[in-house]
C-alpha cells in the first residue's frame, strides 16, 4: 500500500525504530521482562536444585520462563501509547496495518533479546543442554514469532481496558495454548536429541499457527485500533 514518497516497509520500520529508540532511552519494557525472567529462572533453579528433573520437564520449564516473562512486557507496546496519550496521535498519523506490523516487529525484537539472555543462563544454572541445537533453534524461532504474532492484537485489546496487566495474561493464555503445546514438544525433542520425524507434526502445526495468527490479527486489527 504505498502512498506519498515513503514506501510501506519504511513506514513499518519507522514505527519499530521509534519504539526501539524509546526503549533504549527509557527501558520501559525490557527491564521488566528481564527481571521477570531472572526471578522465574532463579525460583526454578532453587526448586530443581535438590533433584534432577527429566529433560521433558526441562523443556516445559524453559517455556514457562519465556511465557511469563513475555506476558510481563509484550503488552507495553500499546499500553504505553494508550496511557501517555500518544495512541491518538499515532492513529491519525498512519494506517492500522503499518502500526500493527511495526509493533509486531518491536515485540519480536524484544522476545529475541530476551531469549539471547535467558538461553545461556538456563543452560548454566540448570546444568542442561539441548542435544540437538538445530531443533532448539526451530523451537525458539517459531515460538517467538507465534508469541509475538498472537499477542500483539491482544495487547491492543487490553490497552483499552480498565485493568490491563492481569487481563493480558488471562486473554493470551487460551490463544497461546496450541503454540505452547507444540513448541514444548519440539523443545523436548531438542533436549532428548530426536530425529526430524518426531517433530514434523508439531513443526507443521507451529508454522500454520504462526501464519494464521498473524494474518488473522492483520485482518482484525483495524476493528481494535480504531476505537
Amino acid at each position, binding site marked *: 500500500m504505498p502512498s506519498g*514518497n*515513503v514506501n510501506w516497509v519504511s*513506514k513499518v520500520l519507522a514505527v519499530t525504530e*521509534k519504539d526501539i529508540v*524509546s526503549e533504549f*532511552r527509557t527501558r520501559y519494557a525490557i527491564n521488566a521482562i528481564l527481571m521477570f525472567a531472572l526471578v522465574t529462572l532463579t525460583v526454578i533453579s532453587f526448586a530443581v536444585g535438590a533433584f534432577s528433573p527429566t529433560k521433558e520437564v526441562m523443556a516445559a520449564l524453559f517455556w514457562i520462563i519465556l511465557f511469563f516473562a513475555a506476558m510481563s512486557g509484550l503488552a507495553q507496546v500499546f499500553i504505553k501509547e494508550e496511557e501517555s496519550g*500518544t495512541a491518538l496521535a499515532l492513529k491519525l498519523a498512519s494506517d492500522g496495518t503499518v502500526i500493527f506490523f511495526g509493533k509486531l516487529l518491536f515485540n519480536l525484537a524484544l522476545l529475541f533479546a530476551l531469549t539471547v539472555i535467558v538461553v545461556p543462563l538456563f543452560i548454566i544454572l540448570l546444568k542442561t543442554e539441548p542435544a540437538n541445537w538445530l531443533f532448539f533453534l526451530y523451537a525458539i524461532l517459531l515460538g517467538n514469532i507465534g508469541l509475538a504474532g498472537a499477542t500483539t492484537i491482544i495487547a491492543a485489546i487490553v490497552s483499552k481496558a480498565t485493568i490491563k496487566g492481569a487481563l493480558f495474561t488471562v486473554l493470551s493464555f487460551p490463544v497461546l495454548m496450541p503454540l505452547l503445546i507444540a513448541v514444548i514438544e519440539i523443545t523436548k525433542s531438542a533436549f532428548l536429541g530426536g530425529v526430524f520425524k518426531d517433530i514434523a507434526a508439531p513443526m507443521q502445526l507451529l508454522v500454520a499457527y504462526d501464519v494464521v495468527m498473524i494474518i488473522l490479527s492483520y485482518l482484525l486489527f483495524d476493528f481494535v485500533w480504531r476505537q
Partner: protein
Amino acid sequence: MLKLDVLNLAKRFGARKVFESINFSLTPGESIAIVGPNGSGKSTLLRLIIGLNIPTKGKVVFSDDGEPLEFDAYRRRLALVSPYLSLYGSLTGKENLRFFAKVNGDNISDQEIDSLLAQVGLQGRGEDFVSAYSSGMLQRLKYAVALAKNAEILMLDEPSANLDESGKEAVSDIIESRRKNSILIIATNEKEEYALAERQCQLGQ
C-alpha cells in the same frame, strides 16, 4: 470537493446519554465551534467525527465529490490538536516531527522542520526531549505536527490550552492561514474563541 456530513449523531455510555441528534455539514472554508460546559461531550463528538469511536446512532460521512471516503483516506487529510493527544516524551521535538511525517508517508527536510518550529515559536528547542517541554511548549509542538500534515480538515480541541499570549497569537495566525482551504472544527468553552468559527453547535442542554 471535500465534504463532512454529520447525520443525526447520538452517543450513549450505558444509561448515560451524552448527546443526540447532532446534524451539520461542512466544506472547506467553513468552520464550526462545538461549545458547551465541561462533560457535555465535546471531545467525544470530535472522536466520533474522526471515526475513532462508534456512535450509538447516526453516522459521520467524509466524502470527496460525492464519493464517500474510507477511514484511511480521510485520515491522511485530517489533523487534530487535543489535550487527549500527546507526543513522544522520549523523543526530541525534531524526532517527533520527523517520525509523524514519515509514518504518514512524507519525507520531511531539515529546513521544513526548522520553519515549522519557527512558526509555532519553538526555534532552538527542537533538540530537547519532549518530556522536558513545558505544557505550553508541548501544545505548540502539537500545532507543528498538525501543520506538517498539511491537512484539509483541522480539528482543534481547546485550541489555546496552556498557551501564553504569544502562543495564542501564533494559533490565531495558523487558523487564519488555514481557514480558506480547510474544514475547521473547534471545540471550546472559552467565550472569546467562539468567534473563531462562523457557526456554533451547542452541546449539553
